[in-house]
C-alpha cells in the first residue's frame, strides 16, 4: 500500500473515531451497569425474585394475576402479559388504554402461587436514566436512530483502525509496548494492542447495537405489511372487549401452546394493544434452548372464543434483531459471560480514551515542532493516529 493510501486510511480512522468517541464513551459507561442490571436491581431492591419454594410445581392461573392487577388499578387496561425466562414469574403491564405507549404499572407475580411479588417502578430510578441514555438519549426514536448512526461510524472506525494497524505493525512484533520511549508512544502501543485484540468483540457489539436501534422502525414495518395481511380476514369485525365477552387469557395461552408443542409463552399482546388486533390475543411463543428461546413465533388467538386463528414465522429482519440482542447484551451465558462483557467494555473505554489522548498529544507535538522549525510538519514521529 502506498504512503498516500496509508495517510488516507489514517485520516479515515482519525475522523470517524473522533466523530463517534463521545457517543461511544457514553454508551460504554452506561453499558457497564446495564450488564449488571440484575445484580444492581437485587442489591437496590428494584428487582425482587420469587422466593424458593422447594417441591412446589403448581402453575397458578394467569387469569387470577390479571384480575388482581386490574383490581389494583381500576379503570386501566391490560396491554401485555409476559413470562420471565429465568425465574418462575409473570408480568402484567397496564396502561390507560390497551394501545397506550407507556405503562401505568407493571406487576410481577409468582408463577407457582399467583402471589404478587413486586410492583415494578416506572420511569424513575438511576437504572431508568442509564437505560434511556444508552438507548435513546431521552429523545425517543430520533435519539435511538442517532445512536445507530454513531454505531455505523464506529464500525467504520474499527475497520479503518484494522487497516492502519496492519500497516503500522509491519515491523513490530505483536503486543509490542515501548515502555522506555515517550508516554504517547506507550499509549499508542497499548491502544493498538487492546484495539486489535478486542476487534471481534467490538465489531459484534457495535453491529448488533446498530441492528437493535432499528427494532422499532422494523417492527412498525412488520405491523403495516405482514401483520396487516395476516389479520385481513378479520378486518372490520367489532373489537372484542370484556363487555362484549372475551375469552380468558389463560385459555388463549393453552390454545397457543397446544398449537406448538415444545414451545413456551414469551409474551401476550392483549386485543387492541400495539402488538395485536382489536379482535385477537397475539401470543408470542419461544423455544427452550439458548438460541431458540430468543426466537419468537406469533400465534393469533381469537379473543371472542379462545380458538387458534392463525400462526406465522417472524420475517428475517425481526429474527435478525432477536438474534442480535443476546450478542449485544451478553446475557446468554450466566456470570462468566457477564464478567467477559464487563471486562471488554472497560477495555473499550481505555481504547476510546487513549485514542482521544493520542489525537490531542499529536496536535501538541505537531504544534511544538512547527513553532520550533517555523514551518508545519505532517507527522510528529511517523506514528499514527
Amino acid at each position, binding site marked *: 500500500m502506498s504512503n498516500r493510501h496509508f495517510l488516507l486510511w489514517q485520516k479515515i480512522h482519525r475522523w470517524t473515531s473522533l466523530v463517534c468517541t463521545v457517543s461511544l464513551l457514553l454508551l460504554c459507561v452506561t453499558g457497564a451497569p446495564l450488564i449488571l442490571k440484575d445484580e444492581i436491581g437485587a442489591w437496590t431492591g428494584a428487582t425482587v425474585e420469587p422466593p424458593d419454594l422447594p417441591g412446589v410445581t403448581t402453575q397458578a392461573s394467569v387469569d387470577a394475576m390479571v384480575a388482581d392487577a386490574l383490581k389494583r388499578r381500576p379503570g386501566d387496561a391490560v396491554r401485555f402479559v409476559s413470562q420471565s425466562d429465568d425465574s418462575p414469574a409473570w408480568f402484567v403491564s397496564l396502561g390507560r388504554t390497551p394501545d397506550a405507549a407507556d405503562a401505568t404499572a407493571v406487576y410481577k407475580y409468582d408463577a407457582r402461587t399467583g402471589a404478587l411479588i413486586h410492583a415494578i417502578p416506572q420511569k424513575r430510578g438511576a437504572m431508568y436514566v442509564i437505560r434511556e441514555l444508552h438507548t435513546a438519549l431521552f429523545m425517543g426514536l430520533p435519539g435511538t436512530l442517532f445512536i445507530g448512526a454513531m454505531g455505523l461510524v464506529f464500525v467504520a472506525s474499527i475497520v479503518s483502525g484494522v487497516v492502519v494497524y496492519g500497516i503500522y505493525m509491519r515491523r513490530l512484533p505483536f503486543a509490542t509496548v515501548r515502555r522506555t520511549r515517550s508516554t504517547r508512544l506507550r499509549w499508542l502501543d497499548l491502544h493498538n494492542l487492546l484495539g486489535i*485484540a478486542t476487534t471481534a468483540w467490538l465489531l459484534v457489539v457495535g453491529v448488533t447495537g446498530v441492528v437493535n436501534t432499528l427494532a422499532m422502525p422494523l417492527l412498525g414495518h412488520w405491523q403495516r405489511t405482514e401483520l396487516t395481511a395476516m389479520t385481513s380476514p378479520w378486518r372490520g369485525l367489532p373489537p372484542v372487549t370484556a363487555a362484549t365477552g372475551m375469552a380468558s387469557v389463560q385459555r388463549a395461552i393453552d390454545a397457543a401452546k397446544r398449537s406448538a408443542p415444545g414451545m413456551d409463552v414469551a409474551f401476550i399482546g392483549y386485543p387492541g394493544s400495539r402488538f395485536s388486533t382489536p379482535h385477537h390475543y397475539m401470543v408470542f411463543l419461544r423455544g427452550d434452548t439458548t438460541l431458540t428461546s430468543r426466537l419468537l413465533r406469533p400465534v393469533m388467538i381469537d379473543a371472542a372464543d379462545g380458538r387458534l386463528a392463525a400462526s406465522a414465522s417472524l420475517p428475517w429482519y425481526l429474527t435478525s434483531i432477536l438474534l442480535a440482542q443476546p450478542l449485544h447484551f451478553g446475557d446468554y451465558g450466566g456470570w462468566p459471560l457477564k464478567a467477559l462483557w464487563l471486562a471488554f467494555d472497560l477495555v473499550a473505554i481505555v481504547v476510546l480514551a487513549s485514542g482521544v489522548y493520542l489525537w490531542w498529544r499529536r496536535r501538541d507535538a505537531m504544534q511544538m515542532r512547527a513553532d520550533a522549525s517555523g514551518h508545519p510538519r505532517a507527522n510528529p514521529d511517523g506514528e499514527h493516529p
Partner: protein
Amino acid sequence: MNGKRINVWRWPIALNAAIVCGLAVALLCDAQPLRWIAWILVGWSLATIGYAVWRR
C-alpha cells in the same frame, strides 16, 4: 525494528477467532461440555492478551 518483515495478522486472527468461536459455541450449544469449550476458547484468548501486556 530490525528490518525483518513479520506476520502482522497471526496473533490478532488467533485471538479474535477464539473469542468469536467461544461466543458462538456458548450461544448455539446448550450441552454443558460444549459450554466448557466456549469458556476455554475465550479464556485462552484473554490469557494470551494479558500475558502479552505483562511480558512487554
